[in-house]
């Protein structure tokens, strides 16, 4: 627990008793929870979405086709529907719908959507010449409607050559950057540059090279920094950085995905072949003019291959330092410099009101979307001051992207506007001054002016101090005028989620919690029961065999009554042999009667019993194959003798058989 101590003088001392412990526990928990954090994220934040409409060409002749792509990407919500613009003048030849990158987690009655995308790809056939202004495509996310950019298409009559048109809707490549006609297509942008080896200190075994695409950028202009690792032999595993490159004086945006595999390209340096790995790649925006430095990266490189584990080659980890690279950021030129600060990049601004007519005292949302390439986080649009309208500080949302390693995206400003007096208002164009680094000229990105009509009575201005009357300011208090000023802006968007039970509150949760342990116990019990049954089955086999012998003897009575002496003696003989086999645990069918007697004596049977047994078996065999029948009395006596022998065999414990 930490306590903050406040005094009248305003000094604050902090007691961090236990904070180290908290950090340690939090760190441990973080390790334990990190795997599940991705799996079961907390409730999704407020929904946001971007909708972009692009075409592979914007000018064409009648009868030609173009591909129109409407891409809606939502965070914290699901793209429920996408409404395409009016396509009068075109035939839709084909339509494709894809919903990639959709990650959803369901908890209880709540489905948490991390991100989802919907891409509609339409192939359009131009039917009539003319200029077509496609209105924005609309996507509905979480009940809210998001709009895309507009698109202009020019269709010329068949036989005419369409005017050259830029790619629209996306980040158009700078014409100056485009390769000349007939040039080879650009190589892999991640491949190391050839030519003079700069940004590195050559080492025949391994070295680090830092490459920047501009040495003298303007302040605020993107510099793409790539750090390569050159190694002669392969690497066993991913190198670890013991020191990251510093980028003081830059705003940095990483251009590599967080998860990626290391892939090598081959390059010869002074005739020596090296494997080259991309270790870092980021966009750096200079924040001030002057000499700035991209610091050196230090890597521990495990060289060799995994097969060296089994060979005689010693495994080594090489430590290599990169070379700091100096960048001279040029101040923006004075010629034509506007009075306000200019933002470096290429931007467009669109503004809109969610309603154009409103009652006084009600709020409307004024939205300004800044799109383009450059350091969007640096973009500011001052809140306009309009007499009769109150505007709250804006809520700002950023969606930063880097297609083609060119950082840009969309920055959205949302103001709540409340008319205090009735009347017709004109909201001035929203915008800011820009500086195009490629052209080296200043400009201005600005939206169109908007109109708002307010009707109703005059609404009173808010009091400067809205503290309740019972909260008198205390004498000597140095409380700021508005303590809530350090709060973030009002959240004007909300999914207005309703209460949903957590997993722990679900009635099935206790059962689910206990199920694995219960299954484990059941498995153990079943296994134990099966083992015991098997043991019993093994131990009782002789007893079962002995019981079978007695049953055979019981049949003798029935056979005797039937007068079947042959079968009667056969059963009697079989019963005695079965009983012997059960007790001895070995077959006795292979012995002659004399050999059987000797074997029984060897296994510990009294001689007298062995003799009687053999005599009885011999008698039974003889009687079985004699021509004359036997009287019932004789059969009964033979049965009694056999019964007595069975009882004695049952009590007999044989000595262990000799192993062959």
């Amino acid at each position, binding site marked *: *627990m*930490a*306590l*903050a*101590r*406040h*005094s*009248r003088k*305003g000094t604050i001392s902090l007691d961090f008793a236990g904070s180290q*412990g*908290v950090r340690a*526990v*939090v760190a*441990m*928990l973080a390790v*334990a*929870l990190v795997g*599940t*954090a991705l799996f*079961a994220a*907390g*409730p999704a*934040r*407020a929904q946001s979405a971007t909708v972009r409409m692009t075409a592979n060409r914007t000018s064409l002749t009648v009868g030609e086709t173009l591909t129109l792509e409407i891409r809606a990407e939502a965070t914290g919500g699901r793209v429920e529907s996408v409404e395409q613009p009016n396509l009068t003048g075109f035939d839709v030849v084909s339509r494709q719908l894809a919903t990639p990158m959709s990650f959803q987690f369901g908890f209880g009655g709540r489905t948490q959507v991390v991100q989802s995308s919907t891409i509609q790809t339409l192939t359009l056939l131009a039917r009539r010449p003319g200029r077509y202004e496609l209105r924005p495509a609309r996507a509905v996310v979480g009940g809210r409607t998001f709009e895309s950019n507009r698109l202009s298409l020019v269709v010329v009559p068949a036989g005419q050559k369409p005017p050259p048109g830029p790619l629209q809707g996306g980040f158009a490549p700078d014409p100056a950057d485009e390769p000349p006609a007939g040039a080879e297509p650009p190589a892999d942008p991640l491949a190391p540059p050839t030519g003079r080896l700069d940004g590195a200190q050559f080492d025949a075994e391994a070295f680090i090279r830092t490459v920047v695409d501009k040495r003298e950028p303007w302040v605020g202009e993107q510099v793409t920094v790539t750090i390569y690792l050159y190694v002669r032999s392969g690497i066993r595993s991913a190198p670890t950085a013991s020191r990251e490159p510093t980028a003081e004086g830059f705003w940095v945006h990483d251009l590599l995905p967080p998860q990626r595999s290391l892939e090598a390209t081959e390059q010869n340096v002074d005739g020596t072949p090296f494997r080259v790995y991309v270790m870092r790649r980021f966009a750096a925006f200079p924040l001030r003019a002057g000499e700035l430095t991209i610091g050196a990266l230090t890597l521990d490189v495990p060289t060799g291959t995994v097969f060296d584990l089994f060979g005689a080659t010693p495994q080594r980890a090489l430590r290599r330092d990169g070379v700091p690279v100096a960048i001279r950021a040029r101040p923006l030129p004075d010629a034509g410099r506007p009075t306000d600060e200019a933002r470096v990049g290429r931007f467009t601004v669109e503004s809109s009101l969610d309603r154009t007519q409103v009652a006084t*005292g*009600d*709020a409307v949302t004024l939205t300004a979307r800044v799109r383009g390439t450059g350091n969007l986080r640096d973009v500011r649009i001052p809140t306009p001051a309009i007499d009769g309208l*109150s505007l*709250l500080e804006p809520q700002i949302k950023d969606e930063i992207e880097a297609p083609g390693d060119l950082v840009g995206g969309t920055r959205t400003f949302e103001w*709540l506007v409340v008319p205090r007096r009735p009347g017709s208002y004109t909201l001035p164009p929203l915008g800011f001054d820009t500086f195009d680094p490629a052209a080296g000229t200043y400009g201005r990105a600005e939206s169109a002016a908007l109109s708002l009509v307010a009707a109703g009575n005059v609404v009173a*201005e*808010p*009091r400067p101090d*809205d503290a*309740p009357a019972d909260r008198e300011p*205390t004498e000597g*208090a*140095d*409380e700021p005028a*508005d*303590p*809530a000023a*350090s*709060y*973030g802006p*009002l*959240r004007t968007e*909300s*999914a*207005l989620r*309703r*209460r949903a039970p*957590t*997993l722990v*509150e679900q009635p099935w949760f206790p059962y689910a*919690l206990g199920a*694995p*342990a219960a*299954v*484990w116990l059941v498995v153990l019990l079943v296994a134990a029961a099966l083992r015991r049954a098997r043991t019993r089955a093994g131990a009782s086999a002789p007893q079962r065999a002995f019981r079978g012998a007695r049953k055979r003897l019981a049949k003798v009575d029935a056979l005797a009554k039937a007068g079947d002496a042959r079968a009667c003696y056969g059963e009697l003989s079989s019963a005695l042999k079965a009983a012997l086999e059960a007790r001895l645990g070995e077959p006795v069918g292979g012995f002659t009667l004399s050999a059987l007697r000797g074997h029984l004596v060897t296994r510990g049977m009294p001689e007298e019993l062995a003799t009687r047994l053999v005599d009885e078996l011999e008698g039974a065999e003889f009687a079985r194959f004699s021509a004359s029948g036997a009287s019932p009395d004789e059969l009964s006596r033979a049965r009694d003798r056999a019964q007595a022998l069975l009882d004695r065999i049952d009590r007999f414990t044989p000595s262990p058989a000799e192993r062959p």
Partner: protein
Amino acid sequence: MTARPRSRPASVHAARGRCASTVAVLAILVSVVAAPAAADSHRALFARANAAFARGDYQSAAQTYAQLVDAGVDDADVYYDLALSHAKAGAHGRAIYWLERALIVSPGDDAAEAAIAASQAALGRRRAAASGEATVQTRPPFREAAVRGVHVDTLAVLVLALSVLFFGALVVLRFARGETTRLASWIVAPLLGLGLGVAALGLAQKVGLFDTGDAALALDEDLALLEAPDPRAATRGLLHEGERLRVVGRDRGWARVRAPGGREGWLRDDGLGTLRRDKR
């Protein structure tokens, strides 16, 4: 003479069946129609609250946001706006309460954490100005802080997953024949067991198994802590706005609370904000 119960004719059964079906269909229709209507009214309320806030009418804004909460909305953004309205009106205890509620729904909300710190600092300054010096608890207790940034569902899923893996590893350990499999199970099972233990402790802390009563906050300054649930009872002490409490009992509009330092006494319910999600 006794009357025999007569069996109902089949037509009566059929009519009842039709009636039940009609009622069921109507109920479904009503629910289908009512759900978007409720959503619309929630949106309208939210817009009205935002407008009141924009006008600077923070009390109306707070009341309207509170109506949304009463209507069953359990959303971190609404709680945040409600807190902001209270903070603008100077009611920082209530602001902290709603921010804590926002963090229950959406742990790890940095803006809410920063806002809590701002309101606690404002309370500290106000109290210091009044009495010369003030001590404000700026962080929750140790155990609470350990799981503060993790959603209860995250911990629940973690416990379930680790439980399945742990007992699965035990089963493998019991039946595996291969030496490699057994060795791997011997290594993995204790680690999974340890993870399961930690996660289960975290979940138990999160749902309050280790604590007596619900966590709560004093919403107003100088709330009297009484010896009995009666306004005429003797005062045991005063509670500060935003002070963390434990509700250990309730009795007809009164709550028996335990304050830091072991002080215990009775407090009216309306001066107290319980940090527990409403069950609707």
